[in-house]
């Protein structure tokens, strides 16, 4: 093979791999991007039941009800709208009423958000960034949610029973 042919083989091979990778990326991007919504945004957009998204807001004080076998019901609110959430599993260490929370799942036919993941931050002063931004945008931001600059926070996504 001449130098030119070799180079063409190389370039051809590289382009093939790149094309495969691009196809994989586009395919994956179509299915596995999850949007973030607050309860108000969810109501405005009329997200159809079954479509996965992340719901973020404040846990409505007084809404937390623990059922049998680790079933938990609570409401996520952002000041103007509320979405009931059903979750089965262990809530993260710092899940509290009145605190910010981000959950992932989908709405069911009756309008209840079936969460399979509850993301929580291991810091009592921490407000999830998504939630804080969304609340600020809607004018419901209060400074006493107190995202202290530099407050160390680590968190774990908590998987529900369904895998």
């Amino acid at each position, binding site marked *: 093979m001449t130098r030119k042919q070799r180079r063409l083989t190389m370039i051809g*091979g590289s382009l093939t*791999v790149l094309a495969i*990778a691009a196809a*994989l990326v586009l395919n994956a991007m179509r299915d596995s991007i999850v949007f973030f919504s607050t309860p108000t945004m969810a109501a405005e957009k009329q997200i159809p039941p079954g479509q996965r998204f992340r719901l973020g807001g404040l846990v409505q004080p007084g809404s937390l009800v623990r059922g049998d076998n680790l079933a938990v019901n609570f409401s996520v609110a952002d000041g103007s709208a509320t979405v009931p959430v059903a979750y089965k599993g262990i809530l993260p260490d710092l899940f509290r009423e009145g605190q910010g929370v981000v959950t992932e799942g989908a709405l069911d036919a009756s309008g209840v958000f079936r969460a399979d993941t509850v993301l929580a931050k*291991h810091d009592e002063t921490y407000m999830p960034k998504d939630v804080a931004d969304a609340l600020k945008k809607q004018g419901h931001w209060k400074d006493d949610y107190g995202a202290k600059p530099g407050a160390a926070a*680590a968190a774990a*996504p908590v998987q529900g*029973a369904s895998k």
Partner: protein
Amino acid sequence: MIAEAGHYALVLALGLALIQSTVPLLGARWGDHALMNVARSTALAQLLFVAASFTALTMLHVVSDFSVANVFENSHSMKPLLYKITGVWGNHEGSMLLWVLILALFGGLVAAFGNNLPLSLRAHVLAVQGWVAAAFYLFILVTSNPFLRIASPPIEGRDLNPVLQDIGLAVHPPMLYLGYVGFSISFSFAVAALIEGRIDAAWARWVRPWTLVAWIFLTLGIAMGSYWAYYELGWGGWWFWDPVENASLMPWLAGTALLHSAVVMEKRNALKVWTILLSILTFSLSLLGTFLVRSGVLTSVHAFATDPARGVFILLILCLFIGGSLSLFAWRASSLKQGGLFAPISREGALVLNNLLITVACWTVLLGTLYPMVHEVLTGNKVSVGAPYFNLTFGPLCLGLMLAVPFGPLLAWKRGDLLGAAQRLTAAGIAALIAIAVLWAWTWGGATFAPLVIGLAVFVVAGAMTDLAERMALFRVPLGVAMARARGLPRSTWGSAFAHAGVGIALIGIVCETTWNSEYIGSMKPNDVAKVAGYQLKLDGVTQRQGPNFREMIAQFAVTLDGDELRVMTPSKRNFTTRNSSTTEAALLTRGASQLYISLGDTNADGAIAVRIYHKPLVLLIWWGPVLMAFGGLLSLSDRRLRVGAPKPAKAARALQPAE
């Protein structure tokens, strides 16, 4: 007093870095040996001063001097000594100080042990190290000074985030940083080569051990971090595809590609331009990782720092170094001469394929990591890219790579024989097929895909052994001769076989854990029994205990398998009063490479505890694999070629230096 001394030492280190980044360059331009040698002394002095500064901060933490803001915010007088020390890098300012300490350490190592480098190359390398160091000293001094005092000192500190009070986190950041920052050396070598406009096989031979050292630490650091997340965060996950994890994975991928392309350059003097580019990209990804972690720009489960001023500063550093080095590359790369020729089917060709697949896989990770940020800037909508994306893109590319891995080492340099390699891999292929058949029969009706992937992993492991067996001519010559040949094999051959086998072993662990993981989640009262994967776990009772800076609730589980009493497992929940936060301490029971895992949730009003129990088959292989890879790297590092092969020590080399 100690704080001021530490601060002052850091300022002096900045001054030294500035000298180191300019004077040696002038020396190289004028051919002045004395000026070029300035690099060596400044690099060593810089290391001394940063070490002094770091020691000062450590002392402040140990004596709990709460008049220093950093100590106040991250320490507590009741905290155990070990965590007082590790707490130094458990926060933003301290971890940046550790970052520059390691940078200075690598610079010092090049200065101290780089006697066999040509003088001008060493001067250039250390000057580039000086630029990086100066930028980061400025960053620390301007935006994140760890030595700031508080006007009216409080009596007690706010304590370290409890999740970080763990031995895993004591070791993880230094390891990771040794890897991250270690790649600065190959970056400096690449930039120095571009400035000098000269690069040859000897260059690759100098760069390879440094890259290898960084790669070994990064491998162990990532594995360590993953194991920490597994046992500390309490739900048994070991990889979240979190931006911060991706930030460490990307330099690792690029570094792996670099290791392989440097082999081609060293052995065959080919792929020069590509190797230089990879060196630049690897460190650029390290810088990007530092940016992602330290600026809090991405919504991330690891969001440790949230301060825009810092983000902008690091972004500037990032643009300056990545932009600068890539421009230099665009300008000078054409001056590097083309290297040796090779056919597409050859060892070089296989290594090119390896590089291609790894870098493309790295790009898909980069895309997935940055996509939410770009999307938000463009549309204002928040999105998250989760595990499914990475499984669908990174997964297939890696599987493709796995299929090719066993062939690479069996191909000859320059022109290889694919058919011959395939014939020699027959035994490995048969082993893979047997593994697939056995697994299918065993898990009849279960997962279909998992046995195939495990078969592939077996193929990789068996392929690595085939390579060794071929080289020592096992079964073809008498055993004694084969053993003698085995001893005679270069260490790097053993190294690559171990590293490749490590990849396969990690893959087996990953597939087994994700496919056949079983779990029980429920609330339990004393004397309740949970059954998971044939094990019976009886909750004996719950006790309370007072720790140094926390209260702990411990549950005792008696574990039995087929009526045999195995052990008592004691998961616990710790409540840290200072921060009013709690952590879950999982209990682990290791059986071979599999583990039983218990973590506790909330206690209900009626006294029942929420419990999460997992059985994770062969989960430990996920971390044994990387340990094996690192061991392979270590073997390769001890190869005498890398020690003896490089040109002789300074005096001889200097005498041979052409007067430029």
